């Protein structure tokens, strides 16, 4: 059993505070759905969990089975069992997916000779053509193909906890179903813990979360079950967004907004 525990996590980009006290625990076999409006900091949460450069943790902790992830490099977090499916997977010209996954296997003490067969198996499970396996990483792939590629890598790498950042964007209905089924199978077959981030509820039509969290104002504002998805569908996020917490930039302390109407 593995547990990803996020406690009172604060993080910033440059001087802008984005995460403001995130509390969340994801255990093996659980699917947590995180929904929130654009700009609420969902993708920042994913980036901070994986240790992406440019994001600074200012307070709080992230642990995986008690290990402090904030003290680890991105590679070390991955080796510890964390996986991030990126919202926008990066193109790496001239680098074959197979070389990457074999290198990752070597680094975590697995047998790289098994990677090739695992790639083919995973590709088949999500209806991803084998011809894509020989392409340079994400180069000339459509948005949907990139998301399948991320899912394939999740399958081969066998992480303990997977963070899926907008895995649904770019996928058509059929692909979304295949990818969601693959993630669910991983939760039952290997007890994968999942943190699935999205701003559309349609992902949760396919990937049924055990827990739903509403993310707004840089933190989790509400937690519950699928009834929260229905509430978002009916009412939107408006009720959760704290207007005062909208990011404002101050100029020299004179005024919050130098372009404000002085007669207002």
């Amino acid at each position, binding site marked *: 059993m593995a547990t990803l525990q996020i406690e009172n996590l604060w993080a910033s980009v440059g001087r802008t505070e984005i995460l403001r006290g995130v509390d969340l625990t994801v255990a093996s076999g659980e699917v947590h759905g995180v929904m929130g409006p654009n700009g609420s900091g969902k993708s920042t949460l994913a980036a901070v969990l994986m240790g992406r450069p440019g994001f600074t943790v200012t307070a709080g902790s992230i642990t995986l089975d008690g290990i402090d992830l904030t003290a680890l490099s991105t590679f070390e977090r991955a080796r510890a069992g964390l996986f991030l499916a990126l919202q926008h997977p990066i193109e*790496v010209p001239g*680098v074959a997916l197979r070389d990457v*996954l074999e290198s990752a296997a070597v680094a975590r003490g697995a047998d790289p000779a098994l990677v090739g067969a695992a790639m083919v198996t995973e590709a088949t499970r999500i209806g991803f053509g084998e011809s894509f396996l020989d392409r340079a990483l994400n180069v000339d792939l459509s948005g949907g193909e990139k998301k399948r590629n991320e899912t394939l890598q999740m399958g081969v790498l066998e992480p303990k906890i997977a963070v899926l950042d907008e895995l649904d964007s770019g996928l058509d209905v059929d692909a979304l179903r295949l990818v969601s089924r693959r993630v669910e199978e991983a939760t039952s077959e290997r007890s994968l813990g999942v943190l699935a981030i999205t701003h559309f509820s349609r992902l949760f039509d396919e990937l049924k979360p055990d827990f739903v969290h509403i993310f707004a104002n840089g933190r989790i504002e509400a937690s519950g079950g699928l009834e929260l998805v229905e509430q978002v569908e009916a009412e939107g996020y408006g009720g959760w967004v704290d207007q005062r917490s909208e990011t404002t930039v101050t100029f020299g302390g004179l005024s919050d907004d130098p372009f404000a109407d002085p007669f207002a």
Partner: protein
Amino acid sequence: MTLTPLPFTNETIDALPGSAGLTERRHAAAAALAETPWPTTEAEEWRYSPIGKLDVTTYPPVAAPGPVRPVDLADAVEASARVAIVDGFVVHTDASDPVAIADAATNQLGDLPVAAFSLLAAALAPQPTVVSVAAGAAVAQPVVISNLVTTAGSSFPHVIVEADSDSEVTVVVVHQSADVTALCVPRIEVRAGSAARVTLVELQDLTRDVTCLGRVSATVADQGTFTGWTAGLGGGFARHRLDCTLAGRGSAIIYNGAYFGSGVQARDYRVFVDHVGRDTTSNLRFSGAVDDHSLAVYTGMIRIHPDARGSNATQTNRNITLSPDAWAESVPNLEIENNDVQCSHASTVGPVDEDQLFYLASRGVPDDVATQLIVAGFFDDIISASPVAPLADAARRDIRRRLSMGEPS
């Protein structure tokens, strides 16, 4: 402007082989050189280069070829014809129809050059050699030329490739050396006739104490194509100058270059393409990496002449800096004197892409391995463009070796 003393005398020239006409031309070149200052970094085409550190007088011309030894990389390429050059001397040729190899006649050498090192080469090249391909012939396997430096001093190989109309030939040149302190000034001239297709594939793998000031000059007639590929790996200060004149209508140059600097290597690329004819095309791509204390300079000048309407020119130079002490300079230029043309250029200099590193790390690849993969991948499109597999493989091996082992500066 001070005139540096020359590393040779009139007697040096008189001792070289060749016809009376060739000797006369050498003396004329020497006389012109005596009036020509050695270049300095004040000249734009030598800017950023370590030319100031080069003292030509410390490299007396090699008077006779050293012992022949196998050049594995050249021998690995299946060949239609072969030329073995040692210390500037042609020591072996092997050719049959439709390829002919012969000493250059004086009238095949053209006008005297202007630049100092070209004059030096014209004065001292012991055996300018012409590789000619008959009209309409498609040469099945490459013409393979090995340029081997075995002796301390300076050497001046000179090869002219004359591809007659509608012929097709690939010429492979491998530059290698023994562990000597030497200056090599190779001259390769390509004359592509009407609708001729000439491919020049070069791999420079000289040892670190060899300074190489290479020059490739090409003229391309109507509908002809000159395709070039070069990998610059060895040498200390290694300069590669390319001059191409797209003289005929519809002529083209496609040129891919890869280079890697380690230790204190200096890589210096100067590319000049003249679009003279109508509807001419140039496509230049150079990619390089610099590590340790090495430096790389790329300057490209694409000139579209007034009559060259319908021309199409693209030029790309990308550089990865792998060490804070390494340095790369990229200066792509365009000079356009006709409005009906399409031109683009792009250049980049920077460290390994942070997003790519993060992406591979997030898959569980350690940072050093990720860097190796990304840099090897960065070169992939250029290296893969080599039409001669053994040279592409050698370049890949060299790059991977440098990335995985590192090298002391």
